[in-house]
């Protein structure tokens, strides 16, 4: 079997993978990038709307433009890119040289021997089965991302009379996209009391098109034998179905935008420890997983709402993977835990001797929220956020100065909470 050797191999050529590969190459490592599809860019390629790159490039780009900026940088660097190639199997995962078996219609089946692996494989959409939507099983029920791919890449429409389940960003973007394509979007239904997408998308994609958003509403039944014909919608009253207030909507298409989950199949198969709250790997401050030499970043780690944050996080993974290759040890890592009203924090371990950039997601909507960091129940830092909500990720830095003078025991726990 044909073999290639690289210091670092990045799996996935989307936003995270490209940024990670560039960062690793900058540190002088030999780098390979493995991508399933024909082109680099990942899911960005089907996101033809704008709003990407405000942090990264200080301008508003479309998804493909954002991807192209990175692809152009890659092309000028000494990075080996294997497109149309799927990583199928990892072996020797606990050895210093790991073997990655890759399948490709272009290069055949081959093996990459590598010292470090960066998992940047993105996420997948939750589907009908995951939310156990009852009813018949007609055609016309798609995840919003699939419908987006079909319309933006292939130029096909999945339907004319559309209801969107879930107010995630892809669903909102698709409400606008399908309206532009001549379809009628009858409603967006959200089970929670608040929208799960970004506020700017509620305004630009629903309000501007007079598409009603029903908060605290669920799909309670689906009708239609061959193609979907109708759904029942039931409002929730204090968490319970208010059946008396249920109503029906005629539609030929149901698009599901009910959340993304990290694509953790490779991590699971490899035996990497996962974090229950994110579904992605548990990583330390160097973005390294529980198996030495395996790093993770981007939506494969946790779901981001801005691609700019993905690129930023992925660079850390690339830089740290290079440090790992040089034999630098990540030391004194302490577990960081989600406290009151916090769904999760990433990374899951920090090094108090360094400045740590943390991402966290709130479980509540709050104005003037107070965020509190405790070490072994002792408050070490408090700061205010003017507005927080679950759909908007919070990014902050825990400086080494914040931790000065605190004595850490081996089992010390850092906790991030939102004060009620």
């Amino acid at each position: 079997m044909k073999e290639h050797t690289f210091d670092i191999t990045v799996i996935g050529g989307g936003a995270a993978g490209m940024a990670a590969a560039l960062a690793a190459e900058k540190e002088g490592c030999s780098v390979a990038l493995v991508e399933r599809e024909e082109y680099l860019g990942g899911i960005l390629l089907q996101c033809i709307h704008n709003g990407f790159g405000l942090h990264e490039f200080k301008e508003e780009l479309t998804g493909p433009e954002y991807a192209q900026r990175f692809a152009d940088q890659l092309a000028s660097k000494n990075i080996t890119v294997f497109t149309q190639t799927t990583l199928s199997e990892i072996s020797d995962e606990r050895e210093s040289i790991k073997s990655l078996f890759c399948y490709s219609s272009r290069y055949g089946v081959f093996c990459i021997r590598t010292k470090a692996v960066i998992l940047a494989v993105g996420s997948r959409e939750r589907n009908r089965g995951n939310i156990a939507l009852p009813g018949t099983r007609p055609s016309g029920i798609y995840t919003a991302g699939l419908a987006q791919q079909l319309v933006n890449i292939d130029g096909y429409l999945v339907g004319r009379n559309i209801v969107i389940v879930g107010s995630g960003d892809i669903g909102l973007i698709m409400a606008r996209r399908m309206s532009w394509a001549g379809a009628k979007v009858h409603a967006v239904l959200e089970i929670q009391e608040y929208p799960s997408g970004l506020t700017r998308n509620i305004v630009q994609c629903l309000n501007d098109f007079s598409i009603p958003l029903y908060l605290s509403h669920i799909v309670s039944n689906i009708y239609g034998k061959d193609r979907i014909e109708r759904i029942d919608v039931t409002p929730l009253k204090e968490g319970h179905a208010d059946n008396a207030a249920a109503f029906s909507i005629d539609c030929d298409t149901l698009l599901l935008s009910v959340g993304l989950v990290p694509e953790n199949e490779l991590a699971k198969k490899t035996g990497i420890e996962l974090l229950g709250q994110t579904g992605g790997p548990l990583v330390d401050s160097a973005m390294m997983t529980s198996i030495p030499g395996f790093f993770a970043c981007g939506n494969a780690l946790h779901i981001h709402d801005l691609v700019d944050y993905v690129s930023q996080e992925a660079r850390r993974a690339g830089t740290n993977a290079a440090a790992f290759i040089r034999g630098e040890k990540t030391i004194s890592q302490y577990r960081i835990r989600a406290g009151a009203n916090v769904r999760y924090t990433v990374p899951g371990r920090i090094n108090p001797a360094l400045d740590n950039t943390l991402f966290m997601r709130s479980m509540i909507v709050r104005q003037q929220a107070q965020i509190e960091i405790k070490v072994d129940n002792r408050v070490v830092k408090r700061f205010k956020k003017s507005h927080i909500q679950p759909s908007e990720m919070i990014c902050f830095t825990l400086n080494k100065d914040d931790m000065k003078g605190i004595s850490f025991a081996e089992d010390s726990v850092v906790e991030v909470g939102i004060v009620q």
Partner: protein
Amino acid sequence: MNYDVAIIGAGVSGACIARLLSQYHLKIALIDKAADVSFGTSKANSGIIHGGFHSDAGHYLKAKLEIKGNLMFDQLKRELDFPFVRCGILVVAFREEEVKTLEKLYRQGINNGAIGIEMCGQERTLALEPKLSHDVLASLHAPGGGIIEPYRFVFAMVESAVKNGTELLLNFEVAGASKDAGGFLIESKDRRCIRASYVINAAGVYADEVSEIFNAEKFTIIPRKGEEYLIDRFSTAIPSKVIFPVPGANSKGTLCIPTPEGTMMVGPSAVDIDDKEELSTSSEHLQNIFEFAKHMIPAISERDIITSFAGLRPALAGGDFLIENSAMVPGLIHVAGIQSPGLTASPAIAEYVKDLLKKAGCTLVEKSDFDPSLEKFPRIRSMTPYEAEGVTAEDPAFGNIVCRCEHVSEAEIVEAIRRGHTTLDGIKFFTRSGMGRCQGGFCSGKIMRILMRETGMSFDEITKRGGGSRILTGSL
């Protein structure tokens, strides 16, 4: 067209009958109203090869055929290469009175001639299946029971029949029938006509309506709906054996069924309904099914659900199969009421029908050139990387992994299409693409592109399962 035998219904019964009869000098038509074979009751089957103890072979034809059919699967697998594993069955008891029922089942199994069955105490039960709740008291173990991919079995049977001369007529919904000196004249809803000397009514939930169309016996098929939930292969709850509770009156209860492909099904429910096309699932049954299943295997979790589906058992009053020559219409043979254990019994049903056909006057002369085997088609997911390297060097399409969840290559998709599976569901059942945890979210677009390329279909001709189940409604 003139045929010696027309078989109505290309489910598991019709497929097995067609394949058996294709060994003889007969011109056979296998017809079905759907766009592909196995699209009715057979596709939503639990996929269990039963152990021969659930009913009394002294009273029930279905029990006799179950025992006989069970033993036929090893040879069929060697010839036709479908996923089948004799993993064994455990019926588990949690209360003292259930242990008594187990003992009854055990004696029934012994009398039926079920091979290898044994009563097990708690310790042996937990040794056989450590994932069971430790509250289990005893079990009945049937090592001869197994699991199968039901649609793959039907596909293989139909392919073998077609290879040996059977003609497959799809989208042929029987709308009218008459009989004259030349035999039967059968007309489809879209006005196609065929003639046949003998007709086998294997129409599943529609067997009663087909009988009526032929002016034959009146009977009523009661569609008994079963909902099943498919569990991700990463679940830690998947047992190595099929787990049955002690049975109730109407069905065999909620089961935990490992599949030969490494996932698990939990279900089915059992509810008699009126509508033969009603395949909805409900939140209420989800709760009941999982509550019950967790009591057997505590690690089962709703979080691991990939998808749910429902199927209809074609039940007759009395609960037995109805397999007989029509007394009212000579030349017509009913194969009706084929509910559980129909899949297990199906190869034996075919033998039984063959004898009925002889009784009805049909002459059976064996062909010298009957070929029982099908060429094995390689699947990339069951190969080592070194084996994959070899097939990919021959055909690069094996290196293009189209379905990431179930690891299905472009070459397998193309093969499904070439074998006549041209709906998304048909391709899914042949290849497993879209059967995994993303449920087609990633691969549907790719499969549609391959389907259009291979067949010349236009985008608006692509369907989920034929008829009006279109996927795309327009283009930009």
